[in-house]
């Protein structure tokens, strides 16, 4: 069981895909970063939050049969890496689609969904999953 702040502090990133942009090199990062891995110390004070469009296409994907305990009720489920329109690559599930409808290059968009629950009394955690565009 985790305390609420662990999830609460990430909510704008997981609900609305708010990333961070390095004003030095203009690269947008998602997941958000405190430092730009290219500009490093020059990026201090130059990282600003920016929301992604949620749109992208499938870079790679798989159908998971042996899933994590939390996702047991969902197997088989599709995990994918999505190349977002703004550049970042994002790991997430693709839902409401048959595996046969998905291939590398398939266009998708982010949707807000329930991701995990920590038992009967724990926190219900929300975040993005991807659906076909």
């Amino acid at each position, binding site marked *: 069981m985790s305390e609420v702040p662990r999830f609460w502090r990430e909510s704008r990133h997981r609900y609305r895909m708010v990333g961070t942009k390095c004003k030095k090199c203009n690269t947008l990062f998602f997941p958000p970063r405190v430092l730009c891995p290219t500009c490093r110390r020059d990026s201090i004070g130059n990282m600003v939050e920016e929301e992604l469009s949620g749109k992208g296409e499938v870079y790679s*994907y*798989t159908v*998971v049969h*042996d899933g*994590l*305990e939390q996702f047991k009720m969902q197997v088989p489920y599709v*995990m994918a890496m999505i190349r977002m329109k703004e550049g970042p690559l994002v790991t997430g*599930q693709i839902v409401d689609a048959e*595996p046969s409808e998905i291939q590398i290059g398939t266009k998708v968009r982010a949707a807000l969904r329930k991701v995990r629950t920590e038992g009967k009394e724990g926190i219900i955690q929300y975040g993005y999953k991807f659906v076909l565009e």
Partner: protein
Amino acid sequence: MRDVYIIGAGTTKFGELWDSSLRELASEAGLKALMDAGIYAEDIDALYGANTSGGQFVDQEQVAALIADYSGISELNIPSIRIEAGSASGGAALLQAFLAVKSGQYETVAVGGVEKMTDVPSEVANEIIGGSLDAEWETFFGATEASLAAMVAKRHEYDTGVKREDYAQFPVIAHKHGSMNETSHFRNVIKIEDVLKAPFVSEPLTVFDTAPISDGASALIISADKKKIKNAEHPLRIKSSTAANDFLSLHDRKSIDRFGAVRKSTKSALELAGLEVGKVDVFEIHDSYSIAGLIQMEEILGKEAIRMTRDGEFYYNSSHPVNVSGGLKAHGNPLGASGVYQAVEAVLQLRGNAGTRQVKNAENIMIHNMGGLGTTSVTSIIGVD
């Protein structure tokens, strides 16, 4: 700088070892290494213990202190430090021990790697293995390590034209070699159809593409003490040991099916040893997943590795023997111990004690231990002279 040698090596069997606890496994391997080196506990200046997730598998942290304690050396107050670098913990402990002896601070040190994985159900073990991924941005959303390896495989096929049957060769080779190793987790020989037709873990990878959940421990004695080296039956020189790292998450790398850290650490290990890759006679690599095995060999040998896989050149009796121990796939993958066992295998091969899987005239062996999918990469080169 002075030369550093492996003067002793020991290992337990790897597998589902219901009768043995973590402390029993660790002390068994440690004592074997000590006896093999022909020295006593008093001769050890420090102990480096590799363990990936004792806290989660058996509720035990401070594992190196426990290893020292149950190896009977606590009264000597020998410094005992745990090294954790995901599934590269064993290789990382060897690197730290090598540097400590090389520096001159210590003369003789012990390296012990141990993992006790079967005290929890396999679903729990898979969760714990996932602990090496990015908890907030990979695992949170449902990614398992196998699912990431599967996405690497799919993208690699797409980008390079590599076929499913190509990387499916790695477990076949591993089981062939593992069948000849008495400490292997699995000793059965498998065919490529067995790999392709087994149940999926994460498509296209099946259970045969992935290394098993194993218990086991391995240990080494490392020294720069001239007298101990002279007294050892067959000392082998650590010609180099080095490491490199990449982004923790695959999604932050420029390409998910290139392992830049592997390319860097294997290349710098060769440079530090003053060797060309052609002088390496055996490669022990981190085949946690079949596709990871192929990509590592591509990083080490270039694109040629794909053809060599197809042509069967990675068998023990062919031109570029790979994972002659059985690899993580067949010999077993007790996380913290796996990287240390790679060095034990190098010792057996270089001494000519590898039985029916012996590679003829081997002089230099590269061992490559990896944390995650190319996140942490540790390479050592062990050789005669």
